[in-house]
């Protein structure tokens, strides 16, 4: 292989020399680009230079700062013509379609607001938000977020959220019971007006009535059910929120609702305090293990894996926050799918919407959130997605209450009042990791 050794050779012209220098320069530039990227990658804070003024920045910030948010008409005026971005989990086709058609159309027609739904995983959303906040971006890309639980807690603690804002929303003031614990607390941490409820969810189990004749509605029956169908029942590994919620239901069934709900009030729990409540439940879970899928030596990593196994017929029981009516409607699950809950109840929680501290379109975000909690949209959510409404039915006019009551129930759905009568408050945010650790030590590894 011949290489140019950098010495002038006969036949080389000055043109070649300058080209070589050019190539050398370009190589250096390429290397610098890669080095720069790499260093920044390592340090997480490069040289950076001057703080960026967002190139796409419109006058939104200027408007946002001058808006009196307590004057709803001023908010509506400021929101006009804005494009508001809603970041949230995007893995549910029915919900995406509902947001992109029903909600987006209503916002466009009523308020001249364009809704941009950005579907992504909550962890990725938080990474993006914290990246922007740490870089000191005053006008971020996120307007409002579908959020709850410890994600909300950590965002609020870090000052990544804007608020309190719920008192600005007419529909929140008119139709939501602001003093209900489900609105005041989110997994045990006070919401303090930094998030507005979006929907209520409650753990439900489902099965194919062609395969299973009588569902197990108590923990004793559930244990017998596992013994009758060895290897065909399991739950997602706690750590996955569905898995944690499901073992919570079983533990609550063993220790009793009143005892279990002590966990939802714990703000700074110790391992001993949690164990004192849940120990009989953990013993019960341990006794189930030999009859579970793969004899309980391993558990599916997440609820989507479990759903896939259930859809393939490998398992005969599945579970989740809400009935799978939409899966039945679109043919993924058979018409004979039925849901049930334990007589001792199942855990439930609320999910919320919060506004980013650096949201560029706060007025439009307020209008959009207000629209989501309007009776019309909540009814539409209940009809189309089967989500439990966050509205206080007692505050609704008679005819609207009747509309909610008249929504036909799918065969796979459980009546609303039956669900709410069997609702157990979820353990508080700080208890959850302890519960998962105890399960790992005393059930999985035992």
């Amino acid at each position, binding site marked *: 292989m011949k290489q140019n050794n950098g010495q002038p050779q006969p036949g080389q012209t000055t043109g070649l020399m300058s080209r070589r220098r050019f190539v050398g320069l370009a*190589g250096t530039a390429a290397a610098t680009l890669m080095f720069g*990227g790499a260093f920044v990658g*390592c340090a997480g804070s490069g040289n950076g*230079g001057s703080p960026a003024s967002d190139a796409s920045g419109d006058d939104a910030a200027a408007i946002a700062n001058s808006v009196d948010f307590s004057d709803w008409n001023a908010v509506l005026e400021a929101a006009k013509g804005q494009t508001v971005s809603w970041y949230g989990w995007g893995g549910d*086709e029915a919900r995406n379609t509902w947001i992109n058609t029903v909600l987006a159309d209503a916002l466009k027609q009523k308020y001249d607001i364009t809704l941009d739904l950005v579907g992504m995983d909550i962890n990725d959303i938080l990474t993006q938000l914290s990246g922007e906040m740490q870089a000191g971006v005053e006008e971020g890309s996120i307007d409002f977020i579908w959020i709850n639980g410890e994600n909300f807690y950590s965002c609020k603690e870090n000052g990544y959220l804007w608020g309190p804002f719920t008192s600005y929303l007419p529909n929140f003031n008119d139709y939501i019971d602001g003093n209900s614990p489900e609105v005041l607390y989110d997994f045990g941490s006070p919401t303090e007006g930094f998030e507005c409820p979006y929907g209520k969810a409650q753990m439900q189990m489902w099965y194919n009535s062609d395969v299973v004749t009588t569902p197990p509605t108590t923990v004793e029956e559930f244990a017998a059910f596992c013994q009758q169908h060895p290897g065909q029942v399991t739950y997602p590994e706690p750590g996955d929120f569905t898995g944690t919620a499901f073992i919570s239901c079983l533990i609550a069934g063993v220790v009793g609702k009143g005892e279990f709900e002590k966990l939802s009030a714990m703000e700074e729990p110790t391992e001993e305090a949690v164990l004192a409540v849940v120990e009989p439940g953990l013993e019960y879970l341990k006794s189930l293990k030999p009859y579970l899928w793969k004899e309980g030596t391993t558990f599916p990593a997440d609820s989507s894996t479990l759903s*896939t196994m259930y859809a393939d017929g490998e398992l005969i029981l599945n579970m989740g926050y809400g009935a799978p009516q939409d899966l039945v409607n679109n043919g*993924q699950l058979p018409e004979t799918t039925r849901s049930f809950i334990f007589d001792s109840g199942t855990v439930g929680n609320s999910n919320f919407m919060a506004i980013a501290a650096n949201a560029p379109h706060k007025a439009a975000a307020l209008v959009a959130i207000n629209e989501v909690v309007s009776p019309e949209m909540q009814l539409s959510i209940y009809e189309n997605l089967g989500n439990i409404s966050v509205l206080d039915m007692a505050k609704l006019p008679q005819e609207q209450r009747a509309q909610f009551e008249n929504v036909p129930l799918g065969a796979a759905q459980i009546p609303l009042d039956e669900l709410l009568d069997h609702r157990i408050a979820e353990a508080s945010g700080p208890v959850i990791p302890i519960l998962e650790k105890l399960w790992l030590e005393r059930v999985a590894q035992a």
Partner: protein
Amino acid sequence: MRRQARRAGCSGLWAARALVALQAVCVLAPLAIIVVWAFTASWPWPHLLPESLTARGIEELFGPSQKLGEVLGSSVAIALACAFFTTTVATMAGRALSRYRFCGREVFRFAVLLPFLIPATVFAMGVQVAFIRAGLAGTVVGVVLAHSIVALPYAALIMTDAMEAAGNRLEEQARLCGAGPVRTWSGIIIPTLLPSLLSAASMSYILSFSQYFLTLLVGSGKVKTLALVMFPYLSSGDRTIASAYGVVFLAATLVVFFLFELLLHKRMAREIDYFNG
């Protein structure tokens, strides 16, 4: 002797054919299953064929809520821009590394590999912060640049090796015959390197097209590519829609590859002349 050799050659040929067939089955069978799943509503065990079919995947793709054309267009445009930019820089870097001795050359050679060595997630988060400060976050240009950083090591390695393999004989001859720098590049260097250039470009294209996390962070979720729209369905286990997107993803990649191949074959005759001469 000769007959034996021929027989050995024959059985070798059959073995090779069998291996190719096996590989084809290993690659094509899963792809075929993806295509079937794109139209399948439910396919429980122990059914050999799907139990029920659905147009849900297709409706989702072409439905009003997903702007497939827009998303696909921006994916292809970003990937092509990344392929072009990366290949250009990689060619220059490859030339500098293979032809010239300069101070710190080995350091640069190592620097080329550096993005390989850093975990993608760590890298993406750093790039996000740097790009936010530079005002590149949430822009298409920023996404193209970020993808290029990831694709550069692959492309630069290909181009450095290609430059070293090609040598500078032919180029020097052209210069001796009086060709200017522009003519040498357009008539000798680029045609000689064309197969490698296309390899580097298609590698960059693929890498850019399939980036999820980096696109998400640098694009702030505003720059929507196919990978970005597809991923939530993959992670939520909706196999019908994920497969439908998978088919589009595959088709978009294959079309571009086909075009690259077509370009290459047009030049093939000249290449063979060169390597034989």
